């Protein structure tokens, strides 16, 4: 430790100090807007409206008003429904979408990793190709296609789009299943287990770690997803879509604190997930990025 410290040249120390200051400022710039939003979400709406000078916006609220959260959750936001409703749809799509996506990804990844069958190589290369080649402009076709199937504006339709099994999770789980020795399956076969029970009772439990990681990342991505519910679930809004929709009207009526409370509610679940699974989330994002 000491010997290493000696080696550092004075130039390097200056560099590190400057970098430290820059990092600290950047960190503050990331945290501060949200802390500011959190504090002001407790400001009484009337107090907010009476504020005239810039400095007062940056003061603490005179009395901490928790009723903004209650108002926000229960009151209907124009024709957008209440935030409670948005919360419900966000939760529904996130939970079901995550389960469906990870389940089908696991099925596809397991079979491609562990079984021999015609077309296996093509399937794997197609999955990679679909991820690497950027194609835009298929949205009009997708909308028409969903209308044709009568899946537009339905929860089922959004879940159908979320259920794609050949994405990042496929690649991640493919390598995870490849890492598990087939000996376990053979041992189970001796005991008379069929293919299904090997998959569900042996392989899935052994692959629990990667599966949970995939599920957490998927859940965060779906919770934050804007475009799919925006395009394919018009009549019900999720939180991400709803927040964007109510923004203008709340600001015009100077109801900022309500908006702030809604923002806090929308980011709280992912922050909790992040606090609990921080290491897993970071590791897997890094792995996903490298493979992309």
């Amino acid at each position: 430790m000491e010997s290493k410290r000696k080696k550092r040249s004075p130039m390097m120390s200056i560099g590190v100090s400057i970098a430290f200051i820059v990092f600290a400022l950047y960190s503050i710039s990331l945290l501060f807007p949200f802390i500011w939003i959190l504090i002001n979400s407790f400001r009484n709406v009337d107090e907010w409206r009476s504020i005239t000078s810039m400095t007062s916006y940056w003061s603490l609220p005179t009395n901490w008003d928790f009723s903004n959260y209650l108002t926000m959750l229960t009151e209907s936001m124009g024709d957008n429904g209440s935030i409670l409703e948005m919360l419900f749809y966000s939760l529904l799509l996130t939970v079901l979408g995550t389960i469906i996506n990870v389940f089908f990804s696991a099925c596809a990844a397991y079979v491609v990793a562990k079984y021999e069958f015609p077309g296996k190589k093509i399937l794997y290369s197609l999955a990679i190709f679909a991820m690497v080649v950027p194609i835009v402009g298929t949205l009009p076709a997708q909308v028409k296609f969903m209308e044709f199937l009568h899946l537009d504006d339905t929860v089922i339709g959004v879940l159908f789009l979320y259920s794609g099994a050949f994405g990042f999770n496929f690649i991640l789980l493919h390598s995870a299943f490849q890492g598990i020795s087939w000996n376990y399956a053979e041992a189970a076969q001796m005991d008379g287990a069929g293919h299904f029970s090997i998959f569900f009772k042996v392989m899935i439990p052994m692959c629990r770690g990667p599966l949970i990681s995939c599920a957490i990342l998927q859940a965060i991505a779906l919770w934050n997803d804007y475009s799919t519910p925006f395009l394919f679930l018009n009549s019900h809004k999720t939180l991400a879509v709803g927040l964007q929709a109510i923004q203008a009207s709340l600001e015009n009526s100077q109801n900022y604190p309500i908006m702030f409370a809604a923002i806090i509610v929308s980011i709280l679940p992912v922050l909790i997930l992040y606090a609990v699974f921080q290491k897993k989330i970071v590791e897997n994002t890094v792995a996903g990025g490298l493979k992309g």
Partner: protein
Amino acid sequence: MEKTKKKLTSKRKKELIFVTILLAYPVLQFLLVWIFVNSYSLILAFQHIDIEGNISFAGFDNFMRVIQDFLDPNRGSIPLGGMNIPYNLMIFLNSLGYTLITIFISLPLALISSYFLSKKMPFANVFRVIFFLPNIISTVALVYAFRMQTIDPNAGVFVKFFEAIGIYHQNWPETTTIVYLYCIWAGLGYNVLLLSGAIGRIPKELFESAEMDGAGSFKEFTKIMIPMIWPTIVTLIVLGLTNILTLYLQPYLFNLNNNETIAGTIFEGVSGSSVQYPYYAAFGLLFSLILAPIILYIRRVISRKYSDTDC
């Protein structure tokens, strides 16, 4: 593995049935959502849809319209320093900007940052935890927080600052510049994380032996670090390149005048009447056909550099 043409044994049959059942839905979904939709998009680009919904063959009409909107300022344009920029050209420039910004500003910034982050800095782990936040907070909330501080005169600390340096977020290209700034701000953390992960995998002995040979920090940075983490840099450059085709959400959420991108134009296009769908299908196809090969080519060329160091 023997490839006999004998009758399938019952064991093999069971295996194939299992494979079929597990793959049935994933493959069907992939065929429909990927293969079918992409092929249909190709057809749609050559179609004409009228208000009643009647479909007819349009030939290259849609493509011609896209190109005309790209070249002819009389079909809709935006002023810039005495010139009139045709609308589709403006959209292309907006999109190109995201690629240039990511590769020439965000990436070097992230490289320098992660180099220093690897040098025993106090609180390095705290920084890593905070830097990651933009990746998990929804873009809607992030854009809202950024807008609040930079554009909203009600609470923005930086509104005055931007006005002082001449950015008023009313007219193009200032409207796009704000979103560029946002992307640098929100994207830095992810890049730093990926790069410092890669730097962490470089064997320590390499740095030590370089120091023994008297290599300075700059040499260490350019001669050891960059080549060793080149695959990660390639990934980030390719992500930056694809931005030109795929980025849409950030400018869309900022909702300022004339900051649309290629993908954003299509995204907004599908919220409108389906009469316009073939135009946007052609719009997307044309840009993909021209830009995707360029992206893949650049990817191949830059991957080859330092190809002897494989990580």
